[in-house]
């Protein structure tokens, strides 16, 4: 019958400690790649209440500018129409170990003026649902 001597026990214990340390180090290095969740935006999120104060056939350029601010872009049509373009971007980025995913959402509003400078139409869709934080890049 074999018995484990105290020397063998010490060797086993040292080996166990060695492998535990190695596992711990590998885990730390893997986790060392880190994780991050980042949020950002570009432009001001335009209030739906502000948009509803713009009246078709009544409001003019100055009134629109006083409610929504200066447009981010102005498009001029050949037939005399002007379009004010307002945009807002929202960014959510997730980074976990070796995977990262960045989602960007744009909310756009267009105000169309006739040749007399009065609002002809306001193009603002329903507010898009909020972005999700994701890190998995394959779906």
């Amino acid at each position, binding site marked *: 019958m074999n018995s484990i001597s105290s020397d063998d026990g010490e060797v086993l214990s040292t080996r166990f400690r060695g492998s535990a340390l190695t596992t711990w180090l590998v885990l*730390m*290095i893997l*986790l*060392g*790649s*880190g994780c991050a969740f980042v949020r950002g935006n570009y432009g001001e999120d335009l209030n739906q209440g502000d948009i509803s104060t713009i009246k078709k056939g009544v409001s003019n350029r100055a009134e629109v500018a006083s409610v929504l601010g200066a447009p981010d872009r102005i*498009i*001029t*049509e*050949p*037939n005399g*129409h002007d*379009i004010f*373009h307002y945009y807002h971007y929202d960014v959510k980025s997730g980074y976990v*170990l*070796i*995977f*990262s*995913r*960045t*989602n*960007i*959402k*744009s*909310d*756009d*509003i*267009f105000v169309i003026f006739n040749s007399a400078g009065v609002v002809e*139409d306001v*193009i*603002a*869709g*329903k507010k*898009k649902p909020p972005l999700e934080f994701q890190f998995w*890049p*394959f779906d």
Partner: protein
Amino acid sequence: MIRKLQTCFWIIAWLMLLSGCLRGPVAWQRVTLNQPLSAQDVSFVVNGKTSLPEIVEKLGAPNQMLSSNGGIVARYQFTDGKYFRVDFGWGLRFIIPFYSPDLVLGGGGMSADVFQVTYNDHWVVQDHGFAFHSQSSEFRLWPFKD
């Protein structure tokens, strides 16, 4: 015992600080702008009949409006970017502590699905079309392939 604990603490602290500088050996990254639109989503659009408010009601405001000789062009875009990289030199930091060169192979791409609608002066759809390209972006390991 206290000395061992101190050593452990400094190793952990060092590794935690290192995590700010370390980049993993492999990385998959993806960037998307807006949500994809399918042909089914826009099947209600009929040239000469559907108007701008109907489209905005169902699809929301477009991402872009452009002026053209044929009328106003509204564009809805879904952009998809994919990037993959492998750093084959990453493991060298454990053999050569003070010099770890980057030996990176990787690649990716960016592409967009675009739904485009042209309106006439009365804001009725004159023509519309889809361009599906988002599937052409891919995670790519070998950058030398033509």
